[in-house]
């Protein structure tokens, strides 16, 4: 079946379907590039180019949302592979130079965010995909390129770690 606004090189993908998940995919792209809006927008454009050109071909084996999330994930991975060490150095420098100021100016509700940031990357990804992007654990595992079993393990560990960290935090505050 082909939609009226289906893409020429990707007959199972339509513009309207992409528009419907645009916000969710943008959120995912944003967290892939450390919440830098310009980079996230560029990543989104690149993902759409991949779909338009047919380089990333959707064949209905998963949901479109899972597929587009995977495209963004792969593009982000390949883009930041080379830059990761440089970014790490930049972040380290930023923390060293303005760590004290950042701690003071951070709002109180970033406790949750800090607990999330403390998680290993895969646990953070699975928890974001399931809790914030409304994917199932199976879909999240597919996006991350791991088996469903591994996805479940990451999900459970992430939840446990978050609960204990947030509990510690609330005990400290009380």
């Amino acid at each position, binding site marked *: 079946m082909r939609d009226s606004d289906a893409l020429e090189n990707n007959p199972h993908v339509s*513009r309207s379907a*992409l*528009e419907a998940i*645009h*916000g969710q995919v*943008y*959120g995912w792209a*944003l*967290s892939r590039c450390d*919440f830098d*809006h310009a980079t996230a*927008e560029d990543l*989104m*454009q*690149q*993902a*759409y*180019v991949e779909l*338009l*050109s047919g380089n990333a071909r959707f064949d209905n084996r998963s949901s479109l949302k899972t597929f587009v999330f995977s495209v963004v994930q792969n593009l982000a991975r390949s883009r930041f592979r080379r830059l990761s060490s440089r970014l790490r150095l930049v972040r380290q420098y930023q923390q060293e130079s303005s760590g004290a100021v950042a701690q003071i100016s951070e709002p109180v*509700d*970033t406790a*949750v*965010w800090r607990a*999330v940031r403390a998680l290993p990357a895969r646990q953070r990804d699975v*928890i*974001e995909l399931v*809790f*914030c992007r409304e994917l199932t654990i199976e879909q999240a595992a597919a996006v991350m390129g791991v088996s469903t079993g591994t996805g479940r393990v990451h999900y459970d560990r992430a*939840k446990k770690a*978050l*609960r204990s960290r*947030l509990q510690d935090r609330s005990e400290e505050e009380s």
Partner: protein
Amino acid sequence: MKGSDDKLRERLSQAWARRAGDRQPPFDSTWQSAQSRHAASRRRYRRFAGVAATAAAIVVGLNALTSMQQPTYIEVAELLESTYWSAPSDVLLPDREFDIYQDMPVLFESTEPAGGTLL
């Protein structure tokens, strides 16, 4: 367990939303930019393919032209009739033509040094 999951989900969603902020590019502008990038890359590809095809055609044409102009050095009749042959295209071979039936026995029997060595 379900209740605590929901609570955690809510807290995380809020934290993520706050971190991401409200700024979200509209779909139309992102889509248009992607389309123009796609069109530009196709144009680049077509231009490159055109240049590559032209270059390949030139190389093939020149090759055909030179092979037509070059005389054939190996004459089958000449080879069959004579006992010596030298490859004229090979510049590394000596200029002197070498007759294996005439020259070889002389060389074998010779005690004269040739090129610093005694044959």
